């Protein structure tokens, strides 16, 4: 026994008839074991049912399976529905629900019996993402396009009220940026509601660029975020003033625009912070290189004046630099001067011993100099064993030792030679 095909496609006068059909369908569906039905006026209003064009096949007992043809963008997909149809439909509803075009889905099922449609709607409706249907989206984009000028001026005034920094960015540039951004926003949100999707790529890029340039010109992170967030109010205003919006749709659209803008603001701040972190990392690297010079004191004698706290990363750099310089200059002796190291704890001592041992393995002697009395005390209190390391209080002592090891001495000359400059000056 088939579904009655004479049901009308018009609402209004024939609503009673449609309702009767639906009621019948529901009771039949209940008989088939499905009880999850909920009907409201909204659903009834949607049911543009075309029984003539697509004669229903549901309920034809003499067929084992039912073929459903559902319009999809790339073509047509055919589901073979076996006798366990509630489960099959639930699967279809789930699959379709993952796409934004929910109303199109229902249109595809118009040829079916109402109870199938109602069932599908019931299940699709339960899916959270169905809220971001195509129709909702195009609505707020349309509103943005229609009211572009009003939104733009509202946005600019909003910005000037809260975060406008006329000392950092000029009006013309800001206006141009805002216009570009609004246009991109309306375009990108057309196809997707996920800011990480493909259609948002250009917008993401734009926002990241904004985050970067804002940081460069001295904006704070919250000011950068407010640049995006202050777009909310003018868009909400435009949505509120737009005609033919019912409260439910309005709330959903506001929720969605708010969501999108929040995500974009987060993205901007993320990019700004990332830019700042990169700057810090780069400066750290530069500082590391600046703070570890290896100087040649004499032929075969190197000195490494360390300044600042020693940590593992820095020790690694120091060690590598010292060892490679030893090879390059063919030096026998290296003096590590720790006058500029504020504190020596066990870790720093460990790092120093490592460096000295590595230099020894390569065949160079390493002396430690510039040990202040306080540091000497700390070293002993900590129980650090520096027995294998030649230590000297001052760099000059270590240098004298190095010279004597190399078989060289420094002697006083009897008559110090007058400098050339002085001699010349005396002549005048």
């Amino acid at each position: 026994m088939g579904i009655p095909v004479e049901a009308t496609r018009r609402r209004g006068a024939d609503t009673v008839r449609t309702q009767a059909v639906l009621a019948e369908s529901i009771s039949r569906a209940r008989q088939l074991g499905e009880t999850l039905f909920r009907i409201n006026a909204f659903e009834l209003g949607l049911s543009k049912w075309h029984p003539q064009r697509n004669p229903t096949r549901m309920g034809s007992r003499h067929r084992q399976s039912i073929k459903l043809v559902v319009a999809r963008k790339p073509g047509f997909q055919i589901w073979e529905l076996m006798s366990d149809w509630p489960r099959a439909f639930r699967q279809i509803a789930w699959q379709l629900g993952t796409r934004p075009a929910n109303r199109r889905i229902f249109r595809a099922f118009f040829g079916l019996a109402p109870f199938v449609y109602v069932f599908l709607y019931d299940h699709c409706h339960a899916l959270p993402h169905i809220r971001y249907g195509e129709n909702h989206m195009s609505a707020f984009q349309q509103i943005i396009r229609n009211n572009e000028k009003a939104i733009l001026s509202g946005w600019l005034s909003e910005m000037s009220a809260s975060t406008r920094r006329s000392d950092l960015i000029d009006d013309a540039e800001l206006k141009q940026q805002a216009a570009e951004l609004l246009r991109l926003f309306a375009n990108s949100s057309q196809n997707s509601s996920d800011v990480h999707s493909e259609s948002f790529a250009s917008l993401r890029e734009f926002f990241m660029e904004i985050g970067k340039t804002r940081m460069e010109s001295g904006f704070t992170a919250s000011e950068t975020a407010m640049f995006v967030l202050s777009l909310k109010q003018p868009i909400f205003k435009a949505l509120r003033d737009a005609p033919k919006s019912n409260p439910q749709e309005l709330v959903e659209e506001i929720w969605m625009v708010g969501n999108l803008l929040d995500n974009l603001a987060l993205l901007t701040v993320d990019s700004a912070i990332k830019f700042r972190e990169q700057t810090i990392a780069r400066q750290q690297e530069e500082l590391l290189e600046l703070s570890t010079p290896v100087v040649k004191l004499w032929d075969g004698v190197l000195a490494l004046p360390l300044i600042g706290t020693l940590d593992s990363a820095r020790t690694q750099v120091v060690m590598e630099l010292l060892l490679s310089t030893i090879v390059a200059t063919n030096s026998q002796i290296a003096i590590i001067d720790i006058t500029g190291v504020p504190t020596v704890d066990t870790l720093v001592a460990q790092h120093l011993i490592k460096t000295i041992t590595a230099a020894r393995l390569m065949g160079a002697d390493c002396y430690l100099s510039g040990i202040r009395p306080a540091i000497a005390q700390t070293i002993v209190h900590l129980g650090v064993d520096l027995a294998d390391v030649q230590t000297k209080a001052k760099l000059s002592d270590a240098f004298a030792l190095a010279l004597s090891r190399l078989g060289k001495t420094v002697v006083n000359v009897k008559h110090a030679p007058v400098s050339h400059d002085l001699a010349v000056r005396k002549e005048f």
Partner: protein
Amino acid sequence: MDRIPILKLGECLLVTIQVDMHDELALSLQEDLTDQIARHASKGVLIDISSLEIVDSFIGRMLANIAAMSRVLDAQTVLTGMQPAVAITLVELGMSLPGIKTALNVERGMELLKAYIERDSELEEASGLEE
């Protein structure tokens, strides 16, 4: 199987490691070297590892062993030309090779060995005179 050549230079033995050391090669070197020291009654052993770029704890221990064995056979070992990366690796592995003398290059290593042998022979002469 290839072996590392051991050259005799007067009272010293010269070993230059030009290939990547694998464990068997290291063991055979250890064997050959002790043989040679015993045969020639060498006073010094110079091992040049300037071409050695990869080192592990086994090779490190092997080097320490060679030094100890030479010491037993009354020969001083000098290790020369260690690469910075190798030195860092050994230190990180916790092997500071305390018994081994080191030098920057073969030339310096030879000087070191000669000085050592001279001092050694002087000491021997001195003790001989006393007798």
